[in-house]
C-alpha cells in the first residue's frame, strides 16, 4: 500500500498541492480527478519521486520512498507521464525492452526477453514490434508505452492522463487494458483522468482534488453523485445510470 502523509508542494508563491493525506489501495484502479490546476499531476509526480515534496512523506509499505534506492524503487513503482510528444526513433520492441532496464541495465537475458514478449502480446503489439514509434498512430504509441511499463513488472503503475489526444475507441481500449492489469495480474493502477465518465466507469476508487486540496476520497459509487461532484467542480452534474454505469451528463448544465 502507498500512503501519502501531509504532502505539500509550492512553485514560487503558488501552492499547488496542500496537505494531502490519503491511502492508495492495492489491487484497485484509483483515479485522480478535479478541475484544471487542482494539482493532480503534481501529486502523482510526488508519489513517483519525479518531484520532491516540500513537506510530508510518501510511504511504500511503511518505508519512505525518498530513502529507497532508485533501481529498487523502479522495480516496484512505474510512472508514465504524457509521452505522446516523444518522437524518438526506437522500434516498439526496443522501447518495451527498456522497461527491463531496472533489472538488466540494457543487457537482456532469457527471462527479460520473455517479459518483453509477454508485454508485447498483452497489448497486441507483437505484429508491429519492429516498427519505429514515429510510424505509429497516437493510440498505438500509447499502447507501446504502456507495454513498456508492463515489462517493467512493477506492483504499482502510475499514469498521467493516458487518454490525452486519444479518440474514443482507443481510450476505451486503454481503459480496458488497465482494468485487465488489475483484475488479471493484480496490479495497482493510479491514473490522472480528465474525463469524469471514464473515471466513473472504470475505477474502483476516486480521489478528487480542488485547488491543491483533497476534497473527496472513496469508492467510485460514493463520489459519483451530484452533491459530491458539485463540491469538486462547482457545477450541477446530473448523474444517470445506464447499463449499470454511472454517467455524468454535464453537457448542458446551468450551474
Amino acid at each position: 500500500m502507498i500512503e501519502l502523509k501531509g504532502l505539500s508542494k509550492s512553485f514560487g508563491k503558488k501552492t499547488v498541492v496542500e496537505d494531502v493525506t490519503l491511502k492508495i489501495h492495492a489491487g484497485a484502479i484509483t483515479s485522480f480527478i478535479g478541475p484544471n490546476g487542482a494539482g493532480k499531476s503534481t501529486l502523482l509526480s510526488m508519489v513517483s519521486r519525479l518531484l520532491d515534496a516540500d513537506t510530508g512523506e510518501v510511504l511504500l509499505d511503511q518505508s519512505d520512498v525518498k530513502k529507497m534506492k532508485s533501481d529498487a524503487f523502479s522495480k516496484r513503482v512505474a510512472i508514465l507521464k504524457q509521452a505522446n510528444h516523444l518522437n524518438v526513433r526506437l522500434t516498439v520492441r526496443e522501447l518495451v525492452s527498456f522497461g527491463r532496464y531496472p533489472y538488466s541495465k540494457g543487457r537482456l537475458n532469457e527471462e527479460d526477453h520473455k517479459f518483453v514478449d509477454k508485454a508485447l502480446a498483452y497489448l497486441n503489439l507483437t505484429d508491429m514490434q519492429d516498427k519505429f514509434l514515429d510510424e505509429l498512430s497516437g493510440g498505438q504509441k500509447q499502447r507501446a508505452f504502456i507495454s513498456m511499463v508492463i515489462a517493467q513488472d512493477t506492483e504499482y503503475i502510475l499514469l498521467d492522463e493516458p487518454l490525452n489526444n486519444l479518440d474514443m475507441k482507443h481510450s476505451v481500449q486503454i481503459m480496458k487494458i488497465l482494468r485487465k492489469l488489475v483484475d488479471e495480474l493484480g496490479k495497482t493502477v493510479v491514473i490522472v483522468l480528465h474525463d469524469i465518465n471514464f473515471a466513473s466507469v472504470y475505477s474502483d476508487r476516486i480521489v478528487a482534488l480542488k485547488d491543491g486540496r483533497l476534497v473527496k476520497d472513496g469508492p467510485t459509487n460514493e463520489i459519483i453523485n451530484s452533491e459530491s461532484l458539485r463540491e469538486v467542480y462547482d457545477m450541477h452534474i446530473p448523474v444517470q445510470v445506464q447499463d449499470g454505469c454511472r454517467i455524468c451528463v454535464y453537457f448542458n448544465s446551468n450551474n
Partner: protein
Amino acid sequence: MGLKMKLWMLIVAVIILSVTSLFIGAINIKPSDLLNWDSLETQIFLISRLPRLFAIILAGAGMGIAGLIMQSLSRNKFVSPTTAGTLDAAKLGIIISMLFFSGMSYIGQIMFSFAFALIGSFIFMQLLERIKFKDAIFVPLIGIMYGNIIGAFSTFLAYEANILQNVDTFFQGSFTLVVSGRYELLYVAVPAIIIAYIYANKFTVAGMGEDFAKNLGLSYRTVLNIGLIIVAVISTTVVLTVGIIPFLGLIVPNLVSLYLGDNLRKTIPHTIFMGAAFLLFCDIISRLIVHPYEIPVNTTVAVIGSAIFLIMLFRGKAYAQK
C-alpha cells in the same frame, strides 16, 4: 534518402577510402616503393601519410560520436558541438591560455581548453532547460547565437593581441599540418568513444527525458554529465589538432538515425564508420581538386555538409522534433 547501410558496407568504404588516401599527394608513392625501408617514399608514408590517415579517421569518428551524444541528450536533432557553443568555448580557452598563460605547458593548455569546452556545453544544456519553447530549429539557433557570443570574446582578445590571423589559421580545419608527433593527442578520443559505447543504453534512456529516465531508475544528472565530458574531450582534442570541422557532427548522426533509429547501442558503430568515411572522402576531394596543392578540409566539409544539411531541413521539421 532511402539508404539502408549495413555496417560492413561502411567498413569496406572506410578501407577503400583509407587506401586511396594513403596513395594521394604531392609526391607519388607506389605500393612497391614501400618495400624499400630507407626510401624517401617510405619516410613520407610513415611521417605524413599514415598519421594523416589516423587523424582523419579519429576526427571523423569522434565528431560523429560527439554530435550523436549531444543530439540524444538535448533531444534535438540539430544540436552538435558546432551549434551548441562547445567548439567556440574550446577555442576561447586556447586563446586565453596562449595569451595570458604563455608559460603554460602543452598539457596545461589542453586541460584549460577542455575545461572551457565542458563549461561551455554545460551552460548550453542549462539554457535549454530554462527555455520553454523547444522548437527543433529554435534550439540550435540559440546554440549558434550563444557560440557567436563566445566567439566574439575570442575575436576581441585575438584582435587586441594582434594575433587574429594566426588564430584563424590555427582553427581552420585542415590535415595539412598533421605529421608524426603533431596529432597523437587525438588518440584520447579512442577511450572517449569506447566509454560512449559502454554508456550507449544510458544515453538512449536519458534521451527520452528526465522523467522517463528517472522512472527506469537511471541517474539522469550523472549520465548527462558523463555525456558532456565525452563531448568536451572529443571536441577539444579535435580542435587542438586539426581545427574546427563543421557539420560532420550534425549530419552523420542524422543520416544514421534515418535508417537505423535512435538506439545508441546500434547507431554508435555506424556513426563511427560513417563519420570516418565522410571525412576521408572530403579530405581526398580537398587534395585532388587543386592537385598537387590542397584546400583546407573544412571548406570541402562545409560545402558538402551544408548541401546535405539543407536537404535534411527541407525533409521537414517533424522528423527533427522529438
